[in-house]
């Protein structure tokens, strides 16, 4: 399994989870877990996904998420889980 964190930050908008999930589905990315919260007045949604069987190049996938974010007025980042693990776990 190749775990990837998709984070969405910005203003809460209708249907944002559905838009993100459908891009995941189109690219054969399985969603493992979703959390969302309002932190410091900012809507934050974090999706833990499995990108092992990704249908396209990783960079293509993260680019399409970035574009989706730009269109929806939020910021979407796709990052390998290890960057968080290495920073916050010993």
């Amino acid at each position, binding site marked *: 399994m190749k775990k990837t964190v998709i984070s969405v930050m910005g203003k809460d908008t209708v249907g944002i989870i559905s838009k993100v999930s459908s891009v995941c589905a189109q690219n054969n990315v399985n969603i493992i877990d979703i959390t969302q919260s309002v932190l410091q007045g900012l809507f934050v949604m974090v999706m833990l996904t499995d990108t092992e069987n990704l249908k396209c190049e990783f960079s293509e996938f993260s680019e399409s998420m970035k574009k989706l974010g730009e269109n929806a007025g939020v910021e979407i980042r*796709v990052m390998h889980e*290890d960057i*968080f693990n290495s920073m*916050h776990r010993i």
Partner: protein
Amino acid sequence: MLNLNDIMETINMIKQDNLDIRTVTMGISLLDCADSDAKAACDKIYEKITRKAGNLVKVGEQLEKEYGIPIINKRISVTPISMIAASSKADPIIYAKTLQKAADATGVNFLGGYSALVHKGFSAGDRELIESIPYALSETKNICSSVNIGSTKSGINMDAVKLLGETIVKTAEITKEDNCIGCAKLVVFCNAPEDNPFMAGAFHGVGEPDCVINVGVSGPGVVSAALKDFKGDLGEVAETIKRTAFKITRMGQLIGTEASKRLDVPFGIVDLSLAPTPAVGDSVAHILEAMGLEKCGTHGTTAALALLNDAVKKGGVMASSSVGGLSGAFIPVSEDAGMISAAREGTLKIEKLEAMTAVCSVGLDMIAVPGETPPEVISAIIADEAAIGMVNSKTTAVRIIPAIGKKSGEELNFGGLLGKAPIMDLNLKDSPKEFIERAGRIPAPLQSLKN
């Protein structure tokens, strides 16, 4: 599942506080490329560099995309060229041009190692290489040069110090149309590290493996953000810096091991340095100011910097399997928004910077001085700085830029990562000429009876 706050913390460090991997540097040994025929040696050098580092930039970009952390520079360091050029007795410039060709082919933004190690004396090829530096740096774009002129165990080679004063002035004169940029690519070291990934002083030491990946992390912005509005005594300040440095270094360790795996090259070290950029919010001076100094350069600056430097090392050392390079806080004046402003206002002077170099990594870095500065004054500045390194068993370096045709109070504007250098005042009234002309060698210091 990961904690939401942790995820947000990491993202904010990257987004707001300019956290990045400053450089992934591949060290390549060229010892097996030496040849009595210079042309054959150059062919071997080009072949080896492009073979080993052909994928370096591509892998760096891949990692950037996958992990979502910017990797600013992909670079190469090579065996000091004086050692390779010595066997051919040809003009060393052709080696510089070959390196430039290899840098272009691999797409790296700097290639370091047009270097010589002369801390005890000159061997075959060393003097020729040093004399060729001004031309090598003006005729190439991405090649960096360094010379080690002293060490704790061997003392300071004052013949080399004298020669380098002249070399630096000549380099500035030849590149005066371009802001004297040649001098920004030339570092004079005492106790040069063999595994430093940072330019302009990177070279691949002779004790290193054939090929190795070294990583330099950055993140002054993250440290100053952690200290902003932080109330607590200096012990607590040090703790906060340690914790932050730990996190920053873990990034470097992760990217370094991953890059080494993908390039199939052993992982060398993480250089735990706080490397500033001219961007607002990425300044080492601002960390010192966040500790409570009204302006970097005022009384107390040396103490604050000593605390910062030590805490960065303590925090970083546990986060990485192997630490090396320069490891500490950098204080390049032109590359740090806070230092630029302190130098412009006259708070930060060269004497204070010299004191600061006694407690942090590197030394007098990216400092512009008046164009009329004679070579012996540059040599004397190098000697002072080398003496600090030699006596304190630490690396010190000088990267100084005589601003040809300009006076103190004016500025050199390099743009990009090199930033802007306000020209600093020097004592040009009392000459050290006789001292420098004596040349010879300053003996190595005693290592006991330390006071």
